[in-house]
């Protein structure tokens, strides 16, 4: 590995380069020429994965604002997996909905660059830049179906509210800078600890504004209003990408800022996040019960999962930090799989995401029904899937810090969530199919991607040791 000050950004460079090449390829493509643009994206993502692998344990730093510590690299791995699965599953959507492949993949890759930077940045301003890079690309992806009103509406809503949240975030950074004179996370922590600023109103205000910014990005209650609309309007596979990638990146930055930078005043912010986590779990599951659209249902389920992740953040102990990483990996595979199934069953005219569309799916698409069931069981936290180990891990962290109440709210809300996951299973297995057109055949490669993520979910559920070990290594270097 060449050593230099660029080391820490190599994964991002790989993805950026791939994004630029994709854009060029699209520009020089003949009108009807077909190009394997997705392949370019895959190469870039694999490059990022390999680079992250070689950077493991190196703790490389670039520009004093980006670090390649194991925590960030773990997030990189998750993002690479999210990216690869999304690219493979997207191929069918792009062809079916006649999306501009070049723009689509380029935006996706740029979003991933932003996400990676969020996980690796050690400076509040860089985190903000990363947040914007990611968000703008994701706004575009949300509205990429320009011929659909719903898609544009979703993108517009997302953009307006997102811009608001970003400004809150920036305002928060300004307050923290005003008091401590730094935006570097490490120095922030020392400054707060040294002057024992816990309880200082300016700091509290800044912290609160940061919480709003992050809570918006991970769709935590009460800043979750945008997400069901955006999730429903976006193409299904993009929804899967948003709900896993954006969440992973935002949580990563959230953890780094709060458990490293603002750790000295954990007693001040933990109660706030406790309430947000509890409300997020409850609202996400309870409102999810009332949904009849699968995408909205899973949107609320994603909200609830954000709440479980926040429970790990509230716990604030080592178990919690590692649990968050493990949870992100498990959740990414599972949720992307579920949205992948929805995406494959969609058609150009409509997303086919109504509960009724799934009636009797078992008889027409036994394989997809089985995969979907598997992902739903994992989302519901049943053994032997990744979702179970992840939930156990997070609640274990909460209990370890004495937050029994939060753990109990968590497990009970997961029972409620099982109710609506099972509604889908009931539709697929226990209801007869009415005369609805059966969607086009499923491309083998997308199916293969779903099977891979199913195997991943099973692996994390049955033999989680290796990944737990990685997660523990990831947090040991920085916190």
């Amino acid at each position, binding site marked *: 590995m060449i050593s230099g000050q660029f080391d820490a950004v190599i994964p991002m460079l790989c993805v950026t380069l791939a994004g630029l090449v994709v854009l060029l390829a699209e520009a020089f493509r003949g009108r009807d020429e077909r190009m394997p643009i997705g392949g370019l994206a895959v190469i870039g993502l694999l490059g990022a994965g390999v680079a992250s692998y070689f950077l493991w344990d190196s703790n490389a730093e670039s520009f004093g604002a980006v670090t390649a510590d194991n925590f960030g690299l773990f997030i990189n791995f998750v993002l690479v997996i999210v990216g690869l699965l999304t690219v493979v599953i997207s191929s069918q959507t792009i062809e079916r909905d006649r999306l501009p492949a070049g723009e689509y993949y380029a935006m996706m890759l740029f979003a991933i660059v932003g996400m990676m930077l969020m996980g690796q940045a050690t400076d509040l301003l860089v985190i903000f830049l990363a947040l914007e890079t990611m968000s703008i690309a994701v706004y575009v992806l949300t509205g990429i179906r320009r011929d659909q009103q719903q898609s544009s509406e979703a993108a517009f809503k997302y953009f307006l509210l997102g811009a608001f949240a970003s400004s809150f975030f920036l305002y928060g950074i300004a307050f923290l800078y005003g008091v401590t004179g730094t935006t570097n996370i490490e120095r922030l922590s020392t400054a707060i600890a040294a002057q024992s600023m816990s309880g200082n109103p300016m700091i509290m205000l800044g912290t609160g504004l940061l919480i709003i910014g992050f809570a918006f990005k991970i769709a935590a209650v009460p800043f979750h209003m945008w997400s069901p609309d955006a999730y429903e309007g976006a193409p299904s596979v993009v929804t899967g990408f948003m709900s896993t990638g954006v969440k992973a990146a935002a949580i990563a930055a959230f953890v780094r800022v709060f458990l490293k930078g603002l750790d000295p005043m954990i007693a001040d912010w933990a109660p706030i996040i406790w309430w947000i986590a509890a409300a997020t779990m409850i609202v996400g599951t309870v409102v999810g019960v009332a949904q009849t659209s699968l995408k909205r249902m899973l949107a609320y389920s994603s909200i609830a999962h954000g709440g479980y992740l926040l429970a790990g953040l509230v716990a604030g102990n080592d178990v919690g930090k590692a649990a968050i990483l493990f949870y992100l990996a498990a959740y990414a595979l599972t949720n992307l799989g579920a949205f992948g199934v929805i995406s494959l069953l969609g058609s150009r005219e409509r997303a086919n995401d109504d509960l009724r569309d799934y009636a009797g799916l078992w008889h027409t698409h036994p394989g997809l029904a089985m995969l979907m069931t598997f992902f739903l*069981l994992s989302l519901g936290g*049943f*053994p*032997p899937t990744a979702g*179970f180990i992840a939930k*156990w891990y997070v*609640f*274990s962290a909460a*209990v*370890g810090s004495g937050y*029994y109440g939060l*753990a*109990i709210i968590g*497990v*009970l809300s*997961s*029972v409620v969530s*099982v*109710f609506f996951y*099972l509604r889908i*299973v*009931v539709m697929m*297995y*226990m209801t007869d199919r009415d005369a609805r057109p059966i969607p086009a055949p499923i491309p083998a490669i997308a199916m293969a991607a779903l099977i891979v993520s199913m195997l991943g979910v099973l692996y994390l559920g049955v033999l*989680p*040791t290796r990944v*737990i*070990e990685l997660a*523990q290594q990831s947090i040991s270097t920085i916190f």
Partner: protein
Amino acid sequence: MPGLLTLAITLPIIGSLLLLVIPNRDGSKDSLVRWVALGASLVTFAVTLVLWAGYDPANPAFQFVERAAWIPQFGIDYYVGIDGLSLMLLVLTGFLTPIALLSGWVSVEKKVKEYSIFMLLLEASMIGVFCALDVFLFYVFWDFVLIPMYFLIGIWGYDQRIYAAIKFILYTMAGSVLMLVAIIGLSWMHQQMTGEYSFDLLKLYDMQIPAANQYWLFLAFTIAFIIKVPLFPFHTWLPDAHVQAPTGGSVILAGVMLKMGGYGLIRFAFPLFPDAAMSFAPLLATLSVIAIVYGALVAMVQPDMKKLVAYSSVSHMGFVVLGIAAMNVQGVQGASYQMLAHGVSTGALFCIVGMLSDRRHTRQIAEFGGLKSVMPRLTAAMLIITLSSIGLPGMNGFIGEFLIMLGGFKWDPRFVVIAALGVILSAVYMLWMFQRVFYGKVTNDHNIGLPDLSLREWAIVGPLAAAAIAMGVFPNAFLKPMEPAVTRIVERVEPHRPQESIRADAVLPPSVRPKPKPPVPIPVRREVTRISEVQR
């Protein structure tokens, strides 16, 4: 070379994987799938019998222990082993699964492959529940059991199957998740006390948990278990699930799954939290007495045979909890025995009701009558099973209820007086049903010319009836292996009984009150022999 227990857990899983690659053809001719599934379950049964043969009843420790690190970071192991109690429940599971598969041989027509896969997965996870010695592993199996059962009820059940399946899974899961929090809490306590995480049951036994914490943890565990049992007032999921489930599902549900609750109480809730357990025992006993009488009364007025059997389960399982709450050797042995007996009798009852419903597609008592003249063999089988369920001396039901009442009487006679009503009522509702269905003239023309037992049905009722009689005549064969296990658990828990319950001394001021005596070693074996002597 994996040990026998791992083999018992994995054999059904291997069977179900094998089924995955066998092509599925719908229809009752789909015999390859059925035979493979039956074969896998029979081999598993054979393994449980080998375990029984190789089990050393004199050795009180856990046997056939296997241990491998699973998630070493948190001290979670793949740790299995059995004592006599688990052994008997394993044999019961192995015995009932082939019977359940046979009972669906004709009536399950659609998606036979998936049906068989779920049955085998169910068997594997139930075996796992009964031999897990790592609490985390136990919970994994415990929770997984719900999934195949949910599908069995929801896909192959009767009209209201979806409602019943969802109610079943939500109800039981709501109880289980609180247990998960309690399990996590336990491991953290262990970490704080000893510096290392552990989910090892034997290590957790040795932990001195402050009484205040015990209450919450005990409640969390116990609610999970008594929902499963199910104890009044948590029983409402059971009639729905039983009535809507396909016959095979009902057999497993009543025969094995309810026992998971009783097993959990004996293995986990009571010995882990003895102080809390002993102070909650009177409450549990009260609830179980209510369950016994209430279940019997409700069973009496059911027009639907399957529902009648379901409510009779509530009543019979009430006895199990009463025996456990008494927490003396007779009580707990009786409870364990009653679980086995109930598994056999109720499994058989569901099978026979299933046979009637296969023939007539109804389970209403009023639709039948005078079947004795039409189906004399089935009637004879039903009579044996009815008597065993009532608890006729010489049959399996008697031993369990007798021991429970004996143990209960030693502890607090008031409970037993009311519980005895349940014994009488069970004779009322079972015999009354028998009379209305089988005796008299054939009143309904549809019943004329119904075929008697087929060869397959002989293969179902034969072993069940034989087991019911054998368990009644040779109770020691079943009680003896359980004895050391039960004694050990009772010796752990009994000394924690609050002093107030020593009623004779309660009037004395604490200063002069005699110290509670150490548990008297009770000569169990002699007691038991006496019962069999009584029968002779």
